């Protein structure tokens, strides 16, 4: 038997923080690819600490629903799961290249494939593009349009900026958007001045965050000048300094995220049959993202 554990942050205060986690877990449950699928959290229940013991499967794939490698993926999750032999070096990562490492959870004696976070997987690039399609309601969005990918920045963790830049570069290479740039909340180039960095009249802004919350729903919209007060909401698109800003909510709420979770598990050796294709089909917009072909060629990497 094989199980998937989606390890997310959760919240003591905000009931919506776990909503995307549940939604992606349900998408994967419906494929039947895993005998068991569990959501696990740092701030909700089941806690990381107690999730593995709720499983009957001997082989468990743990995928962190986090944007970047750092404190949570390197310290908190492995420690709380009791992966005693864990060492961040085992990922042999340059900050965005962690794939997986096989360990044992010492309280239950099960094999744990501890995967890199969703945020740094190549498939995440497609999710960002799809987010741009959803917010513009244009499956071919790109020509004449600039794309800004927003991240936290290095304040707490330098890998968080690396993840943003990694995907930005990959999208830029595809040449789909006229301009593609990374912007940050706490470092240059700052999201506040997003219109200064783009020539294109239309700018799609996609925050690389797992769940909607304070940053994506209050901070960023106000900082960009989409609205005076987040409680009043904002238009999509909104006019700012002669540009039209198409602001999407957190990328992590996009249905296609379930695909990234599956890809992570597949890279770690999970046997998924055609589940990846089915999830992509279900969660992709009608005309299909142009990244599809590319992704499939990499699926076995």
């Amino acid at each position, binding site marked *: 038997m094989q199980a998937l554990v989606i390890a997310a942050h959760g919240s003591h205060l905000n*009931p919506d923080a776990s909503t995307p986690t*549940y939604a992606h877990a349900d998408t994967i449950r419906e494929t039947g690819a895993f005998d068991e699928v569990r959501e696990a959290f740092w701030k909700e229940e089941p806690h990381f600490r107690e999730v593995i*013991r*709720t499983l*009957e499967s001997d082989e468990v794939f743990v995928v962190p629903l986090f944007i970047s490698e750092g404190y949570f993926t390197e310290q908190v999750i492995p420690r709380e799961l009791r992966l005693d032999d864990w060492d961040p070096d085992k990922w042999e990562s340059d900050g965005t290249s962690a794939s997986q490492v096989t360990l044992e959870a010492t309280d239950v004696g099960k094999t744990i494939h501890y995967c890199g976070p969703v945020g740094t997987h190549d498939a995440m690039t497609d999710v960002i593009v799809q987010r741009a399609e959803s917010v513009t309601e244009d499956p071919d969005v790109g020509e004449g349009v600039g794309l800004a990918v927003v991240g936290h920045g290095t304040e707490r963790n330098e890998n968080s900026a690396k993840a943003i830049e990694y995907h930005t570069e990959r999208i830029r290479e595809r040449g789909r958007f006229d301009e593609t740039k990374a912007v940050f909340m706490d470092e240059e180039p700052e999201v506040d001045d997003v219109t200064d960095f783009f020539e294109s009249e239309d700018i799609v802004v996609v925050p690389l965050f797992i769940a909607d919350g304070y940053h994506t729903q209050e901070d960023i919209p106000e900082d960009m000048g989409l609205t005076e007060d987040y409680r009043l909401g904002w238009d999509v698109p909104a006019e700012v300094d002669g540009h039209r800003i198409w602001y999407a909510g957190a990328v992590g709420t996009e249905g296609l995220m379930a695909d990234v979770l599956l890809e992570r598990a597949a890279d770690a050796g999970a046997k998924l049959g055609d589940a990846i294709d089915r999830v992509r089909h279900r969660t992709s917009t009608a005309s299909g993202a142009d990244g599809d072909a590319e992704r499939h060629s990499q699926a076995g990497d």
Partner: protein
Amino acid sequence: MDDSSTSATQRLLATLTAAADDEHPSSVTFDGLQATRNETGQFSLTIDHADIHQPDLERSALESLLDGEEIGGVAAYVTNWHYWQETVGGEGTARRAFLRWCERAPLVEGTRDESADGDTDTGIGIGTGTGTDIGAVPDRYAALQDGIDREWGQLCITTRFADVDHPDGERVYDLWHVDDAETDIADLTVYDDPREAREIATYDEDGRYRPLKTAPTLETGWAFTGLSGEELVDAVGFFYPATIANWHREREGNLDVDHWTETADRQSGIYEVVSELPREAVDWMAEACCVDSQCLRRREWQYEDGDELDANGGDGPFPCREPCSLVVAAARKWAIAESESERTYELELTPTERNQLEELIDAVADGRTDEIREADVNDGANRYRARYLRAKRFSDEGTLEMREHSESESESESASGGESESKSD
């Protein structure tokens, strides 16, 4: 009996004969039923409780016995075997133990299905019965006709036959709030997908977020009916995550409790500070957060091994094996607050006002503020009473007017009275 009973009989016969060869006899032993096949191909059937001891049977004779055609009640043992061994399975799992508990079946099954793997565990080490077990299969079947109720925190679980008129041994499970026991099912919202439990468990009766799943604030008004065993375990897992797994470990004698000091020492980042929480504060914290009025898990963690906390841990069925994330997050607040030194303040209050402060703290601590009626000015935590006190005693800056005893004054006090120093130990 009916078709499914026949099929249970056929399954049992198949199990008996599949693993047997001339050298290896085989047997099925389960919940008081014992059927064997010896080297010569002869069968025997023993059910002590029903006083059945039938050696040297031909296959056809055994078959009709198992079908219950000769002696009433035998078929129940056969369908019972089928339900547990073939439908539920999962020997040794928490899921199976929980489903056994739900119908008050003894957890020590005394089974050794030697015809199967031969190495399946006999259940040694599984906790002893609770004294309310219904050991004999016919007694349990009689109870299942009406449904067997059990309580798990605020959940009520009923185990019953899927088909009451023609019981074939298959069970189904209903799940609802204990406070809805008397409510007509027509007045409840009925669900059948265990995942719906997540939504129900997210908000309390007043629509407030429940960050602690085992808080006794589960809302009423819903029911899950006709769940399979697996679905029941999933639903309970969404309401009270990991409680079944830890309950099972406790019964098996291997609950891995992490006491306060272990959990605190493990923390990092902004929570590293919690290990500085004083010993006595951990007691106050457990009393604040972990008693049954706040959380239905039974707190098994202590300050450290051999150093128990005073607060009542509660007496629910499922244990709490380490301080939860909510308690750790609150501990951070208290650890920082407790690092301040105490001072002496002087303020003017009438005796009534002093009592009122206590009433205010009690009302908030007991979550009673919503119940205090608008015009009930006899209650110190009444809104008008609180506003009056604020109008009278708060300064223009919105703070309680008081004087702090100066440092030098208290220093000289403690310098003269050496005894008071022991307070800070």
